[in-house]
């Protein structure tokens, strides 16, 4: 059997989390969704084993929920590393202790991605809805760096924290991190219940990127914007210090996501299951008509826009989270505060 080449896969090891972030886009946290906790080492290992049988994967990014509290997480990492895959971990910085990070680094984890949403602890804790989470996250960053690990920080830009973004970046720089992902709040999951509290105006979002661009100029930090943002909302040419990572139309370049039941989704934000690796191979999964829709279907809002082949109407997985189809543009455009 010919193996599918997959540069990158996101693996959701568990749906369980110890924080309750207002912006959390986890699909199982949408209002009204029955959230049956998924947390099984056996199932996770079985899914990884099947994945490696079907596909030639280069990199596995572990996420959740909070991966560090998933059952026998380090063994899952070990299993993956022994198959010579690069491993990175998206964690909330509240699930592990220094000795856990130490072991993960010894196992060869390449990169840890942790949130520091603000230099003001209360604002970070307001977003995570857990007091003390900022302190733990900052401590985790320091621990990982002291152990020789690589860290990239994440700031989710919301109404709550956009004003202090420059100070936040400088704070992150001061604790030794040079790379930051600036992800605008992407509507979905728990975030669907907090739209009014979190969504910025177009001007506020642009102000955040302007300030971040300035901070990058002053500090030399490497910044990227990783949530696909409509160009009519933010024109990244104006912020040349921020690398803009739009969604690709090539399925292999998308953040293909696997859960422990074997379900494959096109990205971790999308609730639509493309197929299941225990039932189909990737060739069949990638032939889906639905996938073609991502490039072929032009939302009415974008009709006639020359930029569609670059921005694809923003994140339409967010439209799906709101119960719409690919015919709808990114809901951030319709929910924007006037």
């Amino acid at each position, binding site marked *: 059997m010919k193996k*599918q*080449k997959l*540069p990158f896969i996101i693996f959701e090891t568990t749906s369980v989390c110890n924080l309750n972030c207002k912006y959390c886009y986890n699909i199982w946290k949408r209002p009204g969704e029955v959230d049956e906790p998924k947390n099984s*080492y056996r199932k996770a290992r079985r899914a990884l084993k099947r994945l490696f049988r079907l596909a030639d994967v280069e990199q596995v990014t572990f996420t959740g929920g909070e991966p560090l509290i998933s059952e*026998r997480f*380090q*063994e899952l990492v*070990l299993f993956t*590393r*022994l198959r010579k895959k690069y491993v990175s971990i998206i964690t909330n910085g509240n699930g592990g202790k220094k000795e856990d990070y130490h*072991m993960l680094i*010894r*196992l*060869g984890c390449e990169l840890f991605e942790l949130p520091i949403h603000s230099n003001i602890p209360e604002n970070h804790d307001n977003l995570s809805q857990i007091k003390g989470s900022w302190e733990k996250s900052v401590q985790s960053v320091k621990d990982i760096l002291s152990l020789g690990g690589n860290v990239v920080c994440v700031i989710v830009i919301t109404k709550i924290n956009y004003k202090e973004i420059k100070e936040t970046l400088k704070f992150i720089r001061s604790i030794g991190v040079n790379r930051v992902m600036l992800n605008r709040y992407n509507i979905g999951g728990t975030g669907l219940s907090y739209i009014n509290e979190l969504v910025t105006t177009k001007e506020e979002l642009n102000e955040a990127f302007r300030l971040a661009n300035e901070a990058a100029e002053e500090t030399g930090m490497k910044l990227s914007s990783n949530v696909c943002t409509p160009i009519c909302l933010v024109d990244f040419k104006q912020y*040349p210090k921020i*690398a*803009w*990572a*739009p969604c*690709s*139309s*090539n399925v*292999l*370049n998308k953040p293909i996501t696997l859960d422990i039941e074997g379900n494959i989704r096109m990205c971790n934000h999308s609730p639509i299951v493309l197929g299941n690796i225990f039932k189909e191979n990737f060739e069949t999964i990638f032939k889906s008509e639905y996938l073609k829709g991502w*490039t072929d279907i032009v939302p009415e809002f974008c009709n006639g826009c020359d930029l569609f*082949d*670059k921005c694809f109407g923003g994140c339409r997985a967010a439209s799906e989270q709101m119960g719409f189809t690919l015919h709808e543009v990114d809901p951030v455009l319709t929910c924007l505060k006037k």
Partner: protein
Amino acid sequence: MFARFFYLWINKNPMEKEKVFGYIVLPALSVAFVVISFLLFINPKNARLLKRKLHLGAAIIALTSISLTFQSCVTCYEPAQELPPNEFFLNTENDSINILLNETNKITGYISNPVASGFYYRIIRDELIYQSGKIEALDGAYNSDMEDFEITLNDSLYGLYDLLFYSGRPDEYSYDAKYVLNILEIK
């Protein structure tokens, strides 16, 4: 403990590394790893076994990567190992490359140990090919371990693309290396 001891010991005695590693340590660790994994399978809640399994696994990973570094280790008694065949390297520290059009319209890099029938590239965005071609060695022939090459970008390119490299004829589903190419102009 055992694994840590060996790891530290061989780091102090580099000349002994290869022999110890090849004939004793890795096989021994692998056997111990299989045994512990089996015991853990029977007693999944045993924390001590779990700890041992992780330590052994970490030692195997560390030692395996030590073994990989041997490949480029040159001593007076052994010739240099061959470089990995057909690997593409660009003059950048990560997997993305920024081209400032104010400064250059060329991408430069090298191919290590070039042994394929031909080398090709494609610059694509969203499955559309914007530029493609055969990569020629800068000095005219693929006859050294590290062969420099240069790609001149078309004037019409601007913004973000994927730059894909192929050893042998390109196809849609496999490439040998991929870089994010960001073509910019500072006004």
